[in-house]
């Protein structure tokens, strides 16, 4: 005997027709369709809409450099072997060790990658800013091993509505793996992280190295 939820699942999947639903579910479904049906209209775009769009498109030339910049900034999934990933992490760690005063100046413009920045944080923690550039998306979250890969993660905010999403997270120094969750579903590595590593399940995680904060 299927539960109501299971039956509803199968109906939503298209596996069970409306007529075969148990009475209560069928009545609810018919009622919902009737209510929402009051809003239904025959909606077709007027000719002027397309003309207006194409007129604005014609007035919006996109120069080749913009196309190139977009292509460069377009997030992509990069696949690395564990050996290459480990090598990249080691090289990055070495670079940071040799260049300890690498914290960005206050007020610097955000970059589309996770970077460490100074801030008021608990002792031993470093305020780390995550930045993700995506003008067309509705939400961006970050999650990683520092959050036990919590699928909710930490929400980034597009404060100015410019498509630059940021969040500050206090982390103890160390090496972390993380990824962004775009629109609540799409897991996407940071395109400009110091390195990317395979998670062993066919996906790629970004690598973040948080160095101890150096006092001026």
């Amino acid at each position, binding site marked *: 005997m299927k539960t109501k*939820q299971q039956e*509803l*699942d199968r109906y*939503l*999947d*298209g596996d069970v027709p409306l007529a075969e639903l148990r009475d*209560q579910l069928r*009545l*609810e479904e018919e*009622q*919902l*369709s009737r*209510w*929402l*049906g*009051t*809003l*239904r*209209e025959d*909606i*077709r*775009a*007027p000719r*002027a*809409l*397309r003309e*207006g*769009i*194409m007129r*604005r*498109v*014609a007035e*919006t030339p*996109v120069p080749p450099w*913009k*196309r*190139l*910049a*977009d*292509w460069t*900034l*377009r*997030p*992509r999934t990069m696949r690395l072997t564990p050996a290459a990933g480990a090598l990249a992490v080691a090289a990055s760690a070495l670079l940071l060790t040799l260049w300890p005063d690498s914290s960005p100046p206050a007020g610097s413009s955000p970059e589309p990658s996770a970077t460490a920045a100074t801030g008021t944080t608990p002792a031993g923690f470093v305020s780390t800013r995550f930045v993700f550039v995506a*003008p*067309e*998306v*509705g939400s961006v979250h970050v999650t990683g091993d520092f959050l036990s890969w919590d699928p909710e993660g930490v929400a980034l905010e597009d404060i100015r*509505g410019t498509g630059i999403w940021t969040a500050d997270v206090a982390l103890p120094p160390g090496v972390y793996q993380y990824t962004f969750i*775009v*629109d*609540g*579903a*799409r897991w996407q590595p940071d395109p400009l992280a110091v390195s990317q590593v395979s998670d062993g399940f066919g996906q790629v995680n970004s690598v973040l190295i948080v160095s101890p904060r150096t006092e001026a």
Partner: protein
Amino acid sequence: MTEAPDEAVVARVLSGRRDDFGVLVGRYQDQMLAYVRYAGFGPSEAADIVQDAFVRAYRHLGRCGEPERFAGWLFRIVRNLCHSARSRNARRRTEPLEPHGQRLESQLPRPDECLEAGRLKERVREALDAIPDDQREALILMYLQGYSVGEIAALAGTSASAVKMRLKRGREALKSRLATLEADWT
């Protein structure tokens, strides 16, 4: 004659054939406009939102990560613009209950029928506006635009299970808000 798939059209536009963007406009303007209208915007504002979405899509076409899923990418731009406009309007409702245009006198319903239908529509509109955006979106796409769960997932850029959860919660939310309308909803 087989239509060129979206990714081929996107590639042509990116190569400089700007007019080919009109193919994508023709392909998706109706469904995007319908979504925006069902989301509660009046004809003029809905047209502006759709127009802005297409122009924005054109300007950023090089950043469409998966051109074969252009429709979903465009839909998410439309959805975000709806969200911005909704915030801007602070849930202002200006759309008249009756669609634009004149009808013949003989086709008009009786005043009491019109009042009843108008009230029902108004209540449903209010209830739909009051539920979370993702639930409203799923209900509109399924019950008003006829998309399947899989198609909604592709458009919204989420999983089928997430869509089903939104639909279930949306159903429950509408049910509680409209329960007083008819007694046979149990």
